[in-house]
């Protein structure tokens, strides 16, 4: 155990975490240089594109120090977004130390602070790493002073690195073995291993990433999941070196994987403790938590005949993402679909993109919703996450919606527009700090519903990408909620209904109508588009009909041209939905969820 070091890298998005992980892997010879793909740990296409880590990946790094002493370093990669704080916390619980990466040109950001707090909660040794020192805009001295002032960490030990150029990597590895403490734990004790990640292998079933705290586990052992109580027989254990490398056992202090014929990833719940069935530990490791979805949206196939395929894709997808919950849903406009619960808006986007990209689904999503609470005349309180279940307004005596504490860090010059954004989104209890000259930290309470509607995109565009955003759930607060319906050609499009605060209803209605007007192509007749609360119309647009929609000539060669055009148009039609005689393209449903950039 003395020669093992378990650590994680935490950083703000774009501060170079993945590149640093790549360099460490390369330096330790886990992959040959010529086989190296950049950001090797982020193996989902989506992660590569967005430059963020969604699923944690772990790598075992053999390292020989200057004295010729061999080490086994376990790099535990963590997801980099607020939606996945729970996964981050489990990964951190599996480490003894972290590398806190700060971009030398950007300094300390909101997420750096949030991650630091997480690391401190787990009592981890923190090694500050100043990355991107090769950039012309790098300001090492200022970054050092931010580390001291904003993070309260001594900066003299900070390592100077350029992951991209491979500068300072060996020094960093030396520092890891010197400063991060070895794991504690007793191999003789009953087995306690923490599941900090899991993914699904179509041939082997669920593969759990584990950190063994006490005892040891070998193939052939019968294990028990302490939260679920289910037992399984271990088929294989080993370590990740990009590929899986089987080992005869995993011992206290080690990090690796475990395969036990588990058919569903839901049975390898992140945060659960694995013990031996015949010699169970007295108590599980702390920190287990059920996934709790906070954002809800319905997914529909673009063509209704693809419903079965979507059902299959969701089932397969869920094998790899236990945090996604779903059940059947149906819409008059969109047919059969699924109501899904997500950890947050990013989680929603990831699920959508992966279903489309990896499972070939064409999807329509409804407006994301939070869980609202309504108190009814009979004294009952009901929770509603779907506008379709909005109760009869005559029976509502009270309504509440969830609030979050939002934290925004940005350069001071954006303060004015940020305050406006915060007010627009019904933010209250504003607090302002200046963590360092030129930078401002804005905190306020706001409804979660406002954060999931196009908030992050607006924030990013207002601050030209410099602003960062983090939030935590606070509590439920009374709210004046109404159901906004959108009518196309006089018919309600149920998939576009949303529950909104009364003060925001008109604005949202106008916006939805404008967006639909832009997206719905002209047809053979005039199409009114309206926003309504109950029977009261609060917004209206009209799509003018075609006056002429034909080419004048159609002789020999025109027929081929026209037929080819029609073939193309027909292919595009699979993505249309018919509501109230009107063909609505998929893009219209998506556009309604985005607000226009006003500036």
């Amino acid at each position, binding site marked *: 155990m003395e020669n093992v070091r378990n650590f994680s890298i935490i950083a703000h998005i774009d501060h170079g975490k993945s590149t640093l992980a790549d360099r460490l892997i390369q330096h330790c010879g886990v992959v040959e240089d010529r086989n190296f793909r950049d950001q090797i740990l982020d193996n989902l296409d989506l992660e590569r594109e967005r430059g963020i880590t969604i699923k944690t990946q772990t790598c075992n790094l053999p390292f020989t120090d200057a004295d010729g002493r061999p080490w086994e370093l376990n790099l535990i990669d963590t997801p980099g977004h607020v939606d996945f704080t729970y996964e981050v916390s489990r990964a951190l619980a599996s480490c003894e130390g972290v590398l806190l990466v700060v971009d030398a040109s950007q300094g300390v950001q909101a997420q750096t602070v949030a991650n630091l707090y997480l690391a401190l909660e787990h009592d981890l040794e923190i090694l500050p790493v100043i990355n991107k020192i090769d950039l012309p805009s790098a300001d090492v001295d200022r970054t050092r002073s931010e580390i001291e002032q904003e993070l309260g960490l001594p900066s003299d030990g900070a390592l100077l690195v350029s992951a991209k150029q491979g500068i300072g990597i060996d020094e960093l590895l030396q520092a890891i073995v010197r400063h991060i403490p070895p794991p504690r734990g007793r191999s003789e004790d009953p087995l306690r291993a923490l599941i900090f990640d899991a993914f699904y292998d179509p041939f082997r079933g669920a593969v759990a990433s584990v950190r063994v705290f006490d005892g040891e586990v070998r193939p052939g052992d019968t294990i028990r999941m302490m939260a679920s109580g289910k037992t399984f027989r271990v088929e294989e254990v080993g370590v990740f070196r990009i590929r899986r490398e089987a080992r005869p056992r995993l011992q206290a202090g080690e990090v690796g994987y475990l395969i036990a014929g588990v058919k569903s990833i839901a049975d390898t719940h992140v945060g659960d403790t694995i013990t031996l069935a015949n010699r169970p530990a007295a108590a599980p490791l702390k920190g287990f938590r059920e996934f709790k979805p906070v954002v809800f949206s319905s997914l529909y196939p673009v063509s209704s005949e693809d419903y079965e395929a979507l059902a299959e894709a969701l089932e397969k997808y869920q094998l790899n993402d236990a945090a996604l919950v779903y059940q059947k849903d149906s819409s008059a406009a969109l047919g059969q679909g699924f109501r899904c619960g997500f950890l947050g808006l990013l989680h929603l986007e990831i699920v959508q993109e992966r279903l489309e990209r990896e499972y070939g689904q064409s999807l329509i999503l409804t407006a994301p919703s939070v869980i609202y609470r309504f108190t009814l005349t009979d004294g009952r309180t009901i929770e509603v996450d779907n506008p379709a279940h909005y109760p009869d307004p005559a029976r509502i005596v009270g309504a509440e919606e969830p609030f979050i504490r939002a934290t925004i860090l940005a350069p001071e010059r954006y303060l004015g527009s940020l305050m406006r954004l915060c007010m627009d989104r019904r933010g209250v209890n504003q607090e302002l700090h200046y963590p360092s000259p030129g930078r401002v930290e804005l905190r306020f309470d706001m409804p979660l519903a406002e954060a999931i509607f196009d908030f992050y995109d607006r924030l990013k565009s207002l601050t030209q990408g410099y602003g960062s955003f983090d939030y935590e759930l606070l509590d439920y607060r009374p709210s004046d909620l109404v159901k906004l319906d959108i009518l196309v050609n006089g018919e309600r499009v149920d998939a576009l209904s949303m529950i909104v605060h009364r003060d925001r209803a008109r604005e949202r209605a106008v916006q939805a109508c404008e967006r639909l007007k832009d997206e719905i192509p002209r047809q053979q007749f005039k199409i009114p588009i309206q926003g309504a609360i109950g029977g009261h119309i609060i917004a209206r647009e009209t799509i003018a009909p*075609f006056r002429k929609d034909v080419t004048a000539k159609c002789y020999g060669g025109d027929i081929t041209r026209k037929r080819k055009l029609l073939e193309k148009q027909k292919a595009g039609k699979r993505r249309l939905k018919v509501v109230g005689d009107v063909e609505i393209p998929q893009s219209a449903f998506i556009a309604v969820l985005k607000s226009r950039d006003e500036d």
Partner: protein
Amino acid sequence: MKTDEDRPEAPGLYVHVPFCESRCRYCAFVSGTRLDRMPRFVEGVLREARMRSWGPEPFGTFYLGGGTPSLLPLPLLTALVQGLREALPLDQAEEWTLEANPQDVTREHLAAWRNLGFRRLSLGVQALRDDLLKSLGRRHDGAQARRAMRLARDQGCDDLGIDLLFGIPGQGVADWTETLDEVIAFRPEHLSLYALTPEGRTPLVRAVARGAIRLASDAVLARLYRAATDRLRRAGYLHYEVSNWAIDAGHRSRHNRRYWRRVPVLGLGPGAHSFDGARRWQDLRSLEAWLRRLDRGLLPTAMEDPLTPEQVRLEVLLLGLRSLEGLPAAMLGDSPEARSRLGRLIARGLIRQRGDLLVPTDRGMFLADGMARLLA
């Protein structure tokens, strides 16, 4: 009144004459002004006619289009027609059409064309106002157009078709209806009214792109179209295709109806299109390339397009929605979606059901492409 044709399924023959005195600003058809190449062209057409293996079935129609067929000197035209009659079973064709520009219509020409067999004359009048004709790049003026129509009638032409353009920049509803009335007064057996459309790489397209010309909006085009539709209905004309009217059912263009009913048509000449019932093909557009290929004893085909059943279905649909030929109601299927879409179009007066056929209304024809998109 002509009787309905005897052999509606007999193939048509189209010969494209790619010569003009000058190019009109809006025209995207294959044509050039090197009139000295006419003899070689005629030789080429005859060679192609002999090379294209075409079934033994006699042609039902013969259409000489262009370009400007009326520009062909009589000896060449005579050689062309005689050569074609020798190469192809043309003698039973019931409808022979020649396209002519007004300035080429003379007493002598009229008699000669008629003697060669062209009983139907399609006259490219386009407009009667001199300034509009000039802006289109036409070489004739209103007086010549009127003279040509009168002369044709005086010389006993009893199957006269007139082409007009609407939506010409500067043309108002009043000008347009005045022109129409004047043309209707000649009681032509056939009228083609085309919305001026920017096509291909024409000077018109470039002028529009530059902003030098502003085309009529769809709303204006719809007004002009509506005006024409109303007037021609009152004058007793049958609106049988988006852009075509006949004085009675027997005077619908037999040749053009072959395109819309997907009856085979053999096309000869540069850029000409052919359809044999299963495949569509086009000849090389360049006269030089077309001639070279023929000189080497090769077919001058540029591209060939065999049709899948689905492509056939789309053709039937898009063509059927443009004309009174209509389309079989059964081909839309009887899914609830298909029925509701069709129901909407019927309810809004764009389509009528006539027995087993769906037929566009006057108003529907001007929205035919949109209906095809909806029903495809």
